[in-house]
C-alpha cells in the first residue's frame, strides 16, 4: 500500500559497505533462536552484512510479530529474513516488501506466499515422525505415552504434535497416547505438567517433549519423582540440559534441527539475492536424531548448541 512513499529505500545503506538485513524470527529468548541468530551473525561476518534479529515473546504473539515486521520495513533494510508465525497474517506486509523491491527469505518454516525467494527450514512434520519412530522402537511397539507440546496453535507446535501423533496412529496400533498437554515451552510449567501426568499415569512408558523447554520439563519431573531410567523420554532441539540428560541416560534421545545452519543459510540466501544470484526454492537445513551413541559425532556436535 505504501509503494509510492519509498522507492529509493534499498539504496540507502548499501553505501557504508555491507547490506542491512533485518531478521524477524519467532522468538529471541530461547536457545534455539539464539543459535539461529548465531548462525546468521556468522554469515553476516562472512559476507560483510549487518543484521538485526528480533522475535516476539512467544509463538502465539502473531500481532507482535506483525508489528516487528512493520517496523523492520519502515527501517528500509536491504533484505528481510522472516519466520512467519502465521503466513496469512503477514500477507499484506509480504506484498509491501515485494512492492518496495525488498527481497524476502523465509526461514524455520515456510511462508505461504510467493514473495519469499527461498525458504531455509526444517521439515518439522518429518522430524516429529522420526521422534515417534524412535519412541515406538524404544518401548517395543506397545505401551502408553504422553506428549508435552510447547504450543497448541503455532505452526511448529502443531506440526511437531501432528507429525508425531500421525506416525503413531499409522504405524503403532498398540501404542496409546494418554495425554497431550501444552506448557508454552515454559520450563516450570512443563515440569509441573509432566509431574501431574506421571502421577496420574504411573504406568506410563514414554513421554515426548516437543521443544527444549518441554523436554527439560519432562527431565525435571522424572528426576524429581525418582523415575529416571524407568521410561523413555524423547526430546527436541538441544541445549545443555538435554545433552547432559542424554549422556547420563535420563533421556533416551532427541531430534535436533540445525538452527545455526538455518540462520546461516538465511543470511547467505539474502546476500545472494541482493547480488542478483539465483536461489533454490527450498534450502533444507535438515534434522538429526541423536542419542548417547552418536552424540559425540562431529556431524552431531556441529548442530548442537549448549
Amino acid at each position: 500500500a505504501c509503494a509510492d512513499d519509498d522507492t529509493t529505500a534499498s539504496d540507502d545503506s548499501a553505501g557504508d559497505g555491507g547490506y542491512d538485513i533485518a531478521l524477524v524470527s519467532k522468538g529471541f529468548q530461547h536457545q534455539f533462536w539464539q543459535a539461529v541468530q548465531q548462525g546468521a551473525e556468522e554469515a553476516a561476518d562472512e559476507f560483510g552484512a549487518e543484521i538485526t534479529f528480533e522475535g516476539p515473546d512467544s509463538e502465539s504473539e502473531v500481532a507482535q510479530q506483525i508489528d516487528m515486521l512493520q517496523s523492520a520495513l519502515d527501517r528500509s533494510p536491504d533484505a528481510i529474513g522472516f519466520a512467519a508465525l502465521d503466513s496469512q497474517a503477514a500477507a499484506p506486509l509480504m506484498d509491501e516488501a515485494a512492492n518496495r523491491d525488498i527481497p524476502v527469505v523465509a526461514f524455520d518454516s515456510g511462508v505461504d506466499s510467493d514473495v519469499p525467494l527461498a525458504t531455509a527450514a526444517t521439515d518439522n512434520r518429518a522430524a516429529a515422525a522420526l521422534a515417534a519412530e524412535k519412541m515406538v522402537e524404544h518401548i517395543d511397539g506397545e505401551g502408553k505415552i504422553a506428549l508435552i507440546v510447547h504450543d497448541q496453535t503455532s505452526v511448529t507446535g502443531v506440526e511437531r504434535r501432528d507429525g508425531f501423533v500421525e506416525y503413531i496412529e499409522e504405524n503403532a496400533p498398540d501404542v496409546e497416547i494418554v495425554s497431550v498437554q501444552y506448557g508454552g515451552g515454559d520450563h516450570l510449567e512443563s515440569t509441573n505438567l509432566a509431574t501431574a501426568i506421571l502421577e496420574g499415569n504411573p504406568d506410563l512408558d514414554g513421554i515426548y517433549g516437543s521443544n527444549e523447554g518441554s523436554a527439560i520439563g519432562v527431565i525435571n519431573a522424572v528426576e524429581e519423582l525418582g523415575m529416571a531410567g524407568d521410561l523413555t523420554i524423547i526430546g527436541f532441539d538441544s541445549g545443555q540440559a538435554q545433552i547432559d540428560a542424554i549422556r547420563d541416560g535420563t533421556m533416551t534421545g532427541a531430534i535436533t534441527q540445525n538452527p545455526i545452519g538455518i540462520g546461516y543459510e538465511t543470511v547467505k540466501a539474502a546476500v545472494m539475492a541482493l547480488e542478483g544470484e539465483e536461489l533454490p526454492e527450498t534450502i533444507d537445513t535438515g534434522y538429526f536424531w541423536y542419542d548417547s551413541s552418536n552424540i559425540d559425532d562431529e556431524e552431531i556436535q556441529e548442530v548442537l548448541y549448549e
Partner: protein
Amino acid sequence: MKPVETAERTPEAGPEAANGGATLGTSRGFLRKQLQQILAFASLIVLVGFFALANSNFLTWSNMMGILVSTAVIGILALGTTYVIITGGIELSLGTGMTLSAVMTGVFLANLGLPLVVGVLGGIMVGAFIGFVNGFNVAILKIPPFIATLAMMLIAEGLALVISGTAPIYFTDVPGFTSISQGTLIPGVNVPNAVIILIGLTAVGAIILNKSVLGRYTFAIGSNEEAARISGINIRKWKILVYTLSGAFMGIAGVVLAARLNSAQPSLGVGYELQAIAAVVIGGTSLQGGKGSIVGTLIGALIVGTVTNGLRIMSIPQEWQTVIIGLVILVAVYTDILRRRRQS
C-alpha cells in the same frame, strides 16, 4: 459577599483542568480541556523528537501510521477499560475476551457466511456480552472485579480455543473484511481505517465520559460508591452498563485485530490486558477510581507504542529495548507527577 461573581471567574482554570477529573464545561471548554491534556504529556512530544533525531526513518508518514496501527488494538482495549477503572474496578479479561470476540467474528463470517455487517456487529456483541457477564458478576454477585474478570479471562481463553478447534480462522473468503483495518476510508489521504477507528473511538469515548449520564455516574461510583448509592443512583445498573460498554470496545478491538491479521488467532491475547491497563494508568487514570480521562489513555497507549517502535527502528538489541521501555515509563510518569505537583 458576591457568590455569583466568584462563581463566574475562570470557569475552566482550576487545578482539575489538567488532572483529568470530571469537570463541567461548555463545548469549547471541553475541547480545550482535551487539548490541554494532550499538551500536558510533554513526554510524548519529547520522545517523538528524540527518535526523529536518532533515526531518519522514524518521522516518515508511513512509520507514524505504523505506530498508530500497532497501537490501535491495545488502544481500543484501553479506551473501553478506562471506564471500568474509573469506577474503581479492573478488567483482566480484555485480552482473551477480545480473542473470543475475534473467533466468534470468524465463526459468523467465515464459517457461517453471514453478511459482513451482521458478522462484525455479532463479534462486537459477543464482546459486549462478555462485559455484561463481568458486570453482572461484579455488581450483582458482588465478586471482586479482579476475581470476576480473572475467571472470565480463563473462561474466554478456553472457549476461544474450543470454538475455533485450536486453529486460526481465516477470512480469506470474506471480501472486504481486511479493509476494516487495512483499507482507507478517506480517499487520497493514506490513513488506514484502524487509525480512523482508534481516533474516532477516542472522540466518542471522551464525549461519553465527560458529557453523558453514564460518564457522570462512572465518576460518581468510583469516587464514593456508598455516597452515590445513598444519593439514589442505581449502582448495579450503571456498573453493568460500564462493563458492557467496555466489553463492546473489546469486541471492536477483536474485529480490528482479526481484520489486521486476516485471521482470528485463538491463542493470542493473554498479556494484552496488562498492556491496556498500563496504557490507562500511564495516561493518568487512577486505579483507586474516581479520576481519569480518555484522551490520557490514548496518550498512554501512544507513549508505549512510540517507544517500542522507535527502539525497533533504531535496532537496539531486544533485551535492552525492554529495559529502556521500563525506564521511559518510569520517567514519563514521574515527570508528569512533578509537573502536577509544581502546578498545585
